[in-house]
Each structure stands twice: as C-alpha cells, then as structure tokens.
C-alpha cells in the first residue's frame, strides 16, 4: 500500500512539474511577443459587416477601404480589419467581444440586429472604444458616436413616386393593382421603406387610383420574393410590384415571367438598392426603377468619422448623418454608379 | 504422414499484446490431408496462433512457410490467397443478409474488378453446393439472424468451404452445437479430409480430439508443449500436458437431495410463451417447482427452449398463459427488475453479449446488480465499499484479475463467467438461473464453476441449471427437467439416470414418450 501511494504521488508531482514548466514557457513567450508588438500611435479600425455575401456590403467595405487608403496616402498611420458575421447575431457578438480585447481604436459596425448587438457594443463602450454604426443602427443610441445611413423613408418615397409615374405612363386602367413586398420586419430598413411606400401610395389608395392587392413579407430574399409573388399571381392580376429591396423585386420578376407575363409591360416592377442584377434588369426593361443607396459612402464616411473622432476629437452635431439616395431608371443606368461611388466629404467634418 | 514435407510450417512465432506475451516462440507443422487438433486452456494461445496464420494478427517474430516457401501473411486476404481460412469461434456472418449472400461474400475477394453483376440464380446454386456438403437443408434465402447458433456455425463452415481453402482452421466449432450437429460436423470433416483438405481444429473437448484428429498439439501459456500422434496417446496424458499438472476430475460429484416435506420456493404452472422473433421458440405448458438448496437441471438440445424458459422467468419472454408462484404467492414478473425483487436472477448464456459490460471495470461489473448496497444518500457511490465488495468476491470465487480496476474485457472467459456469478450473488438472490454456465470456457475453469454452483446450493440457494452438457447436469442436478422443442418431456429425480436415457429423451424420445413425471412420483412412467 505504501509503495502504491508513493507511485501515485510521483505521477502527480510529474504532472504538476510539466504544467508549471508549460505555464512558464508560455508566459515568457507571450510576454516577449506582446512587448515586441506594442505600437501605440497606430490607428486600428475594426469593420464589422452583417453579411459580405451581399454585394451591397461589399461596396460598404470598399468604401471603408478607400477611406483608409486615402488616409494612408496622407501619411496617417491607420489600418483596418474586417469581420463578416454571415447574418448571425451571435457570431457578430463573438467577433466584437473578441475584437474589444485586441486593441482596436474604433469600431465601424453594421449590426445584424438592432437590439442583439447591444451587449457587444456595451462591452466596447465599457472598454472606451468608440463605435460608429453604418447602414443599420443600434437601438440604444448612447452606444455609438453617430449613425451613418440612408434616409430610407425618403428613398422609399422616391421609389413609390416612380411607380406611380410608370403606371401613369403605361396607361393602364385604374384602379391600379399594386403589390408591396416588405423586408425583414423589425429591421429599420424594412420598417422605414414600408413607411415611405405608404406615405405616397396611401394618398392614391385614398382617392381610388390604387388598390393594394397584397402586402407580403419576403424577408429581403429573392426566393421568398419568387414564391410569394407566384402565389399572388395565381390568385389575381397585378399591375405593379414595389419591393423593399432588389432581391425580392428580382424574385417577383421571375414569378411574373413564370406566369407567362412580361415584366415591365404587363407588370411594372420597382426595386430598391440598385444591385448589379437589378441594374441589368433595368437595362433589359424588366425593372422600371430602383433606388441606389450609397453603401460606398457609408463605409467611406464611417472610417472618416472614426478617424476624426480619434485624431481630432471631433463629435458630430447630428445624431444621424444621412447618405444620399439616387433614383435609377433607364435614363441614368450607365452613369449612376459613378455618382454613388465617388467619395464626397463627410458633412460637418472638421477642417483639415 | 502423407508426405515428408509439411504443407505448412510455423517457426518461432512470437506475439505480444500490451502486458502479455501471448505466444512465446511456437513451432508448428501441418501435413497435407491431416486433421490436426489444437488444445490448451484458455489463454494458452490457440486462438492467437490461428489468427496469426489467418492474418488477423501479425506475429512480432517468427515465420510461416507453405510448401517450404516463406510467406508473408499480414492481412486476412493474404491468408486466403495462400489457401488458408478461419471459421471463427464467434459468429462472423452478417445477420441481415441471407445465407446465400453470406456464402457468396466468400467469393467476392476473388472476383476481379470493383463491381460485379450479381445473378440470384447463380448465387443460389453456388451457395447450395456448399450447403449440401454440410447436409444443411434450410431455405437458403432466410436471413442469418433467424438461424440458431448451431445453424449459423454450419453456414460459417460453408462459407469457408466456398473460399476454396486448402487449410481450414476451425476455432472451437463445436462449442455451440448439439450432439447430433457435432456428429454431422465430424462426418463433414472426415469427408473434407478424404477430398484432400487439411484441417486445424481447436477444441476444449478432449474426447473430440480422439474422435476426429490425427495429431494433436498442446499449447500452454503461449508455448508449445507437445505434438502427439492421437493413436499413441490418451486423454489423461493430454489433459495433464494442458494443465501442466495432474488433472483433477472434470465433473465434481454432489450428494443429491430430495426434500419433500418443505414448501417450494418457486412454482411454475403451465407456463406458455410466444416468441418475440420469427422462428423463435415458444414454450408450451411448462410446470415445475424448486426447493431451497436444490439444483434443478434443465436440459435440451439447441432450440429446446432452455434460454427461453430462463428469460420467461425474468419477464423477458412474452408469457401468454401460466402462473408463477414464489413462496406460495402468485407473482407477475414483467422485467428483470421485478425478478430481482422476488430474488430471481438469470445469468445469460452469452457472457460477452448479455452478461458483462466489457467497458466497465471488474469492480463496477460486480456491484452493478446491487447498486443500492454500495451507495449512500442520493445515489452517491461509496467507492471503498465497492472495492471491498469486489475484493471479497474476487477472493471467494478465485477470480484471476490484476486488480479490481481492470476492465472486464481483458479477463479470460472463465474469469468473466465468475464475474457474472459474483455480480449475481451480490444482488443476494434466492434463485439463480444459470444458462450454459460452462460453455466455451476452459477445462480448469469449468471444474471451478461447477464447484461454485455446487457450493451455492449447499449454502441454501436454489439453482436452475440450464445446460446442454448431459454429464454436467447428471453430476450436479437433484432433479432434471428435459425440454424438447419448447415442451416439457420429463421432470424426474436424478436417480438411476444414465447419459443414454437422457440423450434419448433430449432428442425427442424417438421411441418412448414420457407422459408423466414429477418429483412426487419417484419413478417414471413410460408409455410407448
């Protein structure tokens, strides 16, 4: 029994020694590396994007990168790292939490969800890291310096006006049968666009020139736009479709074609976002109009706002810096991109 | 021998497993056309040796020569290409395939190309050829899982034949067979020998060596002790070589008791069951009683319903009619848990499949049935109490194990069986139901297990001993219940009974039918 006890002790002791040695080695190495890599003056910006699978957000990232490059050329010591949350709020929280411990000077965040992002941004706030939200805001405005994003209500109003214009041009008999496809309920973009659509269309509903035959949620998705529109077309004829984004509008176009109708002629389609497929559809005459936002400017301004805040202690006077929207139709389909992709100075920016 | 040059020669085979040296430089030779028996206690290295010949294990040292040329056997397919095949002790058929498909699988490693079109008719005629050789007359499209163990064993042999092997190794082929099936097998082996095949035959039964083998090699503790001409030796010498000492008797004798004045512990009246599986066995009108300290032998061929009776008593067969009384009170037993409540404990036939949890330690297996005794409040386990219990039983039953913490899978068959017995006894049962307790374990362990059973009865436990070993039952039982195809053929005191009488009754009493028998009538009435 005594020998067994001794043996067990020696094994335990050996494990303990190994663990201690391991800890000492790790500690030493890490201390060395961390002391080597201290570079305090550098500005490091984290860009957190909801989904880089979407070209819209790729443009946002490009804009941010353009701003970083511009600043670098001006001799500013700045770098940026981007993170893709694949539309998973939990992953985005994990990414932001991890980044907070990583010495970022500022975070430019495009939240997956307005509320779900809050605990993560609270951590950034606690750590004293400034946050700028782009495209989608956070519910608690105290968690960020400023929001940079589209005035979606105004954009949607423009879209709805284009729809009415097209219907008038078509000479279709009134009341015009209109379908509205809405985005993910609860998201600011979806709610604002819905509001903008109704701001215009409700006047025409009131005077009897428009009937809204269906208002469906297609969650900003092309496949849902397709299936929802197919079901609608199975039940009735439709004169026009207005969708809260191009993906749903393109889905609707597929459904219209599937029903043997001609989009643009039998059914007028208006989208939102001006993604490349939609631009092509406008060229082909299948889509009447779409609204181009300025994701490029959102990213571009986001980085500048972060830079001014850190380097020049700038705070914007506004809570929200709206980015411009542009109506895209066959008339300007070849030129609008330059318009939205050209850098413009950040409104209210400090001089120099 | 047929020729002077051995067909197969093994030189200095060494095989080490973690912690043990299974073979310590074994030399072996095999001549064309002989039946060569390989005997030895469990752990002697018999199975390891044939597994090396068949490429299942790879020898650490030594070489194998076939017709004088050295061959490398590193995988089973290497062995098959050299004309060697193995019929495993455990069933290695695929249960959800038919007999035909299982036999046809033997041919597949020898077909060219990755995919071959299968023709049902061809497959069947291919399989039938070998089934007929074995006198196996059953529908060849039946799934193997529906067959009895004995039939499965024969199908395995058919598959080996289908491989067209020259050297057929049989690892304890008779351990699960009925006497008639053994006779049939031996007839087949003799035929095979006549057709020029060479056979290595592992067995525990010394009498079988003398019935079938030309030569016999004795292994002990991984060493070859001797190779003898069967005609120039006798069973006594072989057993002595196997054990390395003077053999004690195989069957212990026991004073038979016949107590009538007492009340029986267990009474079974007109018990009938229906099987859960297709082709299972149903019991019809089984009636018997069991007294304190009594051993009731239940005997029958494979498929007589012994296992079914054991399972019916612990609620695992579907009972359609009949009653069970314990201490005169009618009880309803629906599960092993109920059975344990009434003190009934069943020790299954197949230790590895049903008896033990091989991944657990010896200690944990021993206490498994009596967790209540070794746990404190809230089911918290008392490891010291467990160890104490385990050590106590290891000592009482003479279980050979390095420690209480050894995994059950690393014990020998006999010791595993003792762990199963210990597990049962820890639960403090009143009636122990043993199902083939000595099947497939070595001679030394058999004697020990029989001794344990006898001692348990002496201590007042009632025992139902189900066995297909007639001599075992004759030596141990006070009364004998004979089953045939699920029916009760006889229930009689073990008095003036002989092997022949029992064998006759077991086989359905081809000439005589026992119409009545019980312990009250101390005689048997036989009508023709």
């Amino acid at each position, binding site marked *: 029994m005594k020998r067994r006890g001794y043996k067990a002790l020696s*094994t335990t002791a050996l494990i303990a020694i190994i663990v201690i040695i*391991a800890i000492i*080695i*790790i500690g030493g*190495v*890490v201390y060395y*590396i*961390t002391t080597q*890599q201290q570079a305090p003056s550098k500005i490091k910006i984290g860009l957190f994007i909801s989904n880089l699978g979407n070209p819209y957000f790729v443009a946002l990232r490009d804009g941010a990168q353009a701003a970083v490059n511009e600043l670098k050329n001006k001799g500013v010591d700045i770098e940026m*790292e981007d*993170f893709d949350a*694949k539309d*998973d*709020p*939990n*992953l985005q*929280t*994990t*990414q932001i*939490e*991890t980044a*907070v*411990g*990583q*010495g970022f000077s500022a975070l430019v965040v495009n939240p997956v*969800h307005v*509320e*779900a992002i*809050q*605990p993560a941004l609270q951590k950034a706030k606690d750590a004293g890291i400034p946050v700028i939200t782009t495209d989608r805001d956070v*519910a608690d405005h105290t968690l960020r310096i400023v929001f940079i994003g589209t005035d979606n209500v105004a954009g949607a109003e423009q879209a709805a006006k284009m729809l009415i214009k097209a219907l008038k041009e078509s000479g279709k008999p009134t009341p015009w049968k209109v379908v509205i496809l809405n985005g993910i*309920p*609860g998201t600011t973009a979806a709610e604002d666009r819905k509001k903008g659509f109704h701001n215009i269309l409700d006047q025409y509903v009131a005077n009897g020139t428009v009937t809204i035959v269906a208002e469906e949620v297609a*969650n900003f998705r092309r496949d849902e736009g397709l299936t929802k529109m197919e079901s609608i077309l199975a039940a009735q004829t439709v004169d026009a479709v207005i969708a809260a984004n191009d993906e749903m509008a393109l889905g609707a176009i597929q459904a219209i074609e599937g029903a043997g109708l001609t989009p643009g002629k039998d059914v007028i389609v208006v989208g939102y976002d001006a993604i490349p497929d939609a631009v092509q559809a406008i060229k082909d005459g299948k889509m009447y109009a779409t609204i181009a936002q300025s994701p490029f400017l959102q990213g571009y301004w986001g980085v500048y706002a972060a830079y001014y805040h850190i380097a020049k202690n700038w705070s914007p006077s506004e809570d929200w810096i709206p980015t411009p929207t542009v109506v895209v139709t066959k008339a300007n389909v070849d030129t609008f991109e330059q318009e939205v992709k050209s850098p413009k100075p950040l409104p209210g920016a400090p001089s120099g | 021998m047929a020729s002077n040059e051995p067909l197969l020669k093994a030189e200095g085979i060494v095989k080490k497993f973690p912690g043990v040296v299974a073979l310590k430089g074994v030399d072996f030779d095999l001549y064309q056309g002989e039946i060569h028996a390989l005997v030895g206690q469990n752990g002697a290295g018999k199975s390891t040796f044939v597994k090396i010949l068949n490429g299942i294990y790879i020898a650490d040292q030594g070489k194998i020569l076939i017709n004088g040329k050295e061959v490398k056997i590193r995988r089973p397919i290497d062995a098959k290409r050299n004309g060697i095949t193995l019929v495993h002790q455990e069933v290695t058929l695929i249960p959800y395939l038919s007999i035909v498909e299982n036999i046809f699988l033997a041919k597949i490693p020898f077909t060219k190309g990755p995919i071959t079109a299968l023709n049902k008719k061809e497959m069947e005629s291919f399989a039938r050829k070998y089934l007929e050789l074995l006198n196996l007359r059953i529908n060849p499209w039946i799934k193997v899982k529906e067959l009895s163990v004995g039939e499965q064993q024969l199908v395995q042999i058919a598959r080996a034949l289908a491989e067209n092997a020259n050297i057929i190794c049989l690892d304890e082929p008779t351990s699960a067979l009925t006497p008639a099936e053994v006779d049939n097998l031996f007839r087949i082996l003799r035929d095979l020998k006549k057709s020029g095949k060479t056979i290595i035959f592992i067995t525990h039964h010394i009498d079988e060596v003398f019935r079938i083998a030309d030569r016999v090699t004795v292994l002990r503790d991984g060493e070859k002790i001797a190779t003898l001409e069967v005609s120039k030796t006798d069973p006594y010498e072989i057993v002595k070589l196997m054990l390395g000492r003077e053999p004690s008797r195989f069957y212990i004798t026991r004073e038979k008791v016949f107590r009538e004045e007492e009340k029986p512990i267990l009474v079974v009246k007109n018990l009938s069951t229906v099987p859960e599986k297709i082709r299972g066995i149903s019991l019809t009108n089984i009636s018997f009683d069991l007294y304190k300290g009594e051993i009731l032998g239940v005997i029958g061929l494979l498929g007589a319903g012994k296992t079914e009776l054991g399972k019916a008593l*612990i609620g695992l067969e579907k009972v359609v009619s009949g009653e069970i009384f314990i201490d005169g009170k009618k009880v309803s037993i629906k*599960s*092993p*848990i109920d059975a344990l409540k009434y003190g009934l*404990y069943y020790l*299954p036939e197949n230790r590895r*499949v*049903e*008896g*033990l*949890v091989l*991944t*657990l330690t010896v200690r*944990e297996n021993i*206490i*498994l*049935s009596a*967790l*209540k005794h070794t*746990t404190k409040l*809230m*089911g*918290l*386990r008392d490891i010291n109490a467990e160890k104490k219990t385990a050590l106590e039983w290891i000592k009482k039953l003479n279980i050979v194990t390095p420690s209480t913490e050894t995994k059950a899978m690393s014990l020998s068959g006999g010791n595993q069986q003792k762990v199963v017995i210990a*597990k049962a006894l820890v*639960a403090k049962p009143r009636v122990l139901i043993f199902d083939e307790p000595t099947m497939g374990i070595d001679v030394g362990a058999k004697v020990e297990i029989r001794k344990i059973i006898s001692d348990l009865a002496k201590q007042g436990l009632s025992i139902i001993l189900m066995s297909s070993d007639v001599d075992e039952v004759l030596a141990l039982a006070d009364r004998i219940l004979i089953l045939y195809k699920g029916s009760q053929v006889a229930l009689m005191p073990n008095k003036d009974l002989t092997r022949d009488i029992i064998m006759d009754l077991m086989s359905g009493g081809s000439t005589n039918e026992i119409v009545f028998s019980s312990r009250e009538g101390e005689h048997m009435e036989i009508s023709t």
Partner: protein
Amino acid sequence: MGKTGGSEGLVDTIKNLWSKLSVYEEVKPLIALIGLFIASALLSPYFLTSYNQRILLLQTAPLAMLALGESMIILMGSIDLSPGSTMALAGTVAAIVHISYGQPLSVSILAGMATGAAVGFINGLLVTKAKIPSFVATLAALVAGRGMVLILTGGQPIVGLTEFRVFTEAIIGLPNMVWIFIVFTGINLLLLRRTSLGLKIYSIGGNEEAARYSGINADLVKLTIFTLAGFYYSIAGLMMNARLEVAYPWTGWGYELDAIASSVLGGIQLTGGIGSPIGPAMGAYILTLITNILILMGVSPYVQWVVKGAVLAVAATALTRGLKYVK
C-alpha cells in the same frame, strides 16, 4: 556512452509516464487543449490577455452546457440531435413569458427550464416507449422544435431581455454563466463518476443487454437522462438570451453538431460507454478557442468551418488510435 544511456533513460521515463497518464480518459483532450492553447498564445499577442480569456470562457458556456447534456446521452449509446432547437425553444419560451406575459425573470427562467426538460422528456418517451431510435426521435425534435420557435416568434427576434443580464454579470472576476457551466461540469463529474445513476449510464452504453439483465431499469435511466439533457440545453438557451439580450429565432442553428463535436473532441466514444465526464466541457472550450484564435487572426468565418472540421478529424483520429475499426 553515458550520454546516450541518459537520453534512453529519459525516453523510458516519458514512455512510462505516458502509459501511466493514458489510463485517464481526460489526458488526451487535455493535451489537445494545452497544445492549441500554446499555439494560440504564439499566434496572437492578444490571446492571453485576461479580457480575451474571460470572453473565451463566456463564449464557451452555452456550448459547454449543450455538450455536457449531449455527452450523457452519447455515453448511453444514444444520440441527441435536438440540442440546438431545444435551446432556442427554451430561450424563446422564457422570453415570451418575460416580455409578452410580463412575468418576472425568475418565472420566465423556470418556464424556459421546464420547456427544455419537457422536450427532453418527450425525446425520452419516444425512445423508450415508442421505441424510435434516438437518431430519428431527436431528428424529429430538431425539426419540430425549430418550427415551434418560428411559430412562437413569427420568425422575429424578441427584444428587450435586459434583465437576463444576471447571467452575464460577474462575480469573483468571471461572468455568472461561466460559473454556471463550471458548476455543471462538476455536477457531471460527480453524477457520472460517483453516483449509481452514472454507473447505470456507463453500463447501458457499454452493454445495454447486460445492464438490463443486471436489473437496471434502462428505460427509466434513459428517460431521466434525456430529460436532464433537455434541462441542460434550456440553460444554454437562457445564456444565449443573455448574450444578445434578444431571443433570436435562429439561435442554436447547427449547434447540435457542435455539441456532438465537443463530445467527440472530449473523448466520448460515439458507440457509448467510454469517455470522461468532463471531456465534453474541454471539447467545447477547444471548439470555442479555435473560433477565437481565428477571429483574432482575422480569418474569414467560412475558413473557420474548414479549420474546425480538420481539427475534429485530427482529434478523432488521435482518440480512436488503437481501435481495430470503427463504424
């Protein structure tokens, strides 16, 4: 000469030590964990910061709860595909009780736990009474559970769960949910190694037939453990509510596979009966650590999947070495 003798002596000592250590099922996952930990520390200077280590544990907590529950089921030789859906359903019910019905936090937490346990109980009934293989029964729960979440939420996140912060608030330097998972790891160790129920779980996984013959009520054990596992998942669901302060309907999507992977990384054999009780918590930590270091290094999430898969394959290979073959 003396020198070579010395190095041989060292090799022997290491071999000897290894043979002693490898008896413990925890050793292999622990070595993997230490190895990855050291590698991560070398790869990123931010890895070893106390902040990063804190959030690493924080992120591990929900997955560890799933893995602890899942591993008990795998140890019985069954499998549970429902952890992801169960956690989402439990979180959703808790959120609805709290927000829509205005109940206090304690009531909503109890409701969530009861929901998880109920899903587990139904799984257990399907397996033991309806005799549906656990893979199929829990696949049904995976699909139906998610469907119920989507019905209850209408596909929309339930917002305003700020009171769930009790889980993320810290005591003694670590968030409460980290303490919860540490405590449950301890509970699992105690339950599986030191109680009769634990031995029953191992014996059912090792040989269910033998366990039944030994008088163990295997059905009751299964029912208990499926229910207990459901309860564990519900805690993970509550933790997720606290993490986002939102009950997100797609919470736990695909987490059943992470839970199984954590168990495997922790040395639990999928055939049942073998594995350390605390291994799954280590496995969950390893999986989270991989995500963490890849984020620190700025690797795309799509690449992260590939890396996770590769680590799993390598780990599983190391753990199953010495087996003749597996299914």
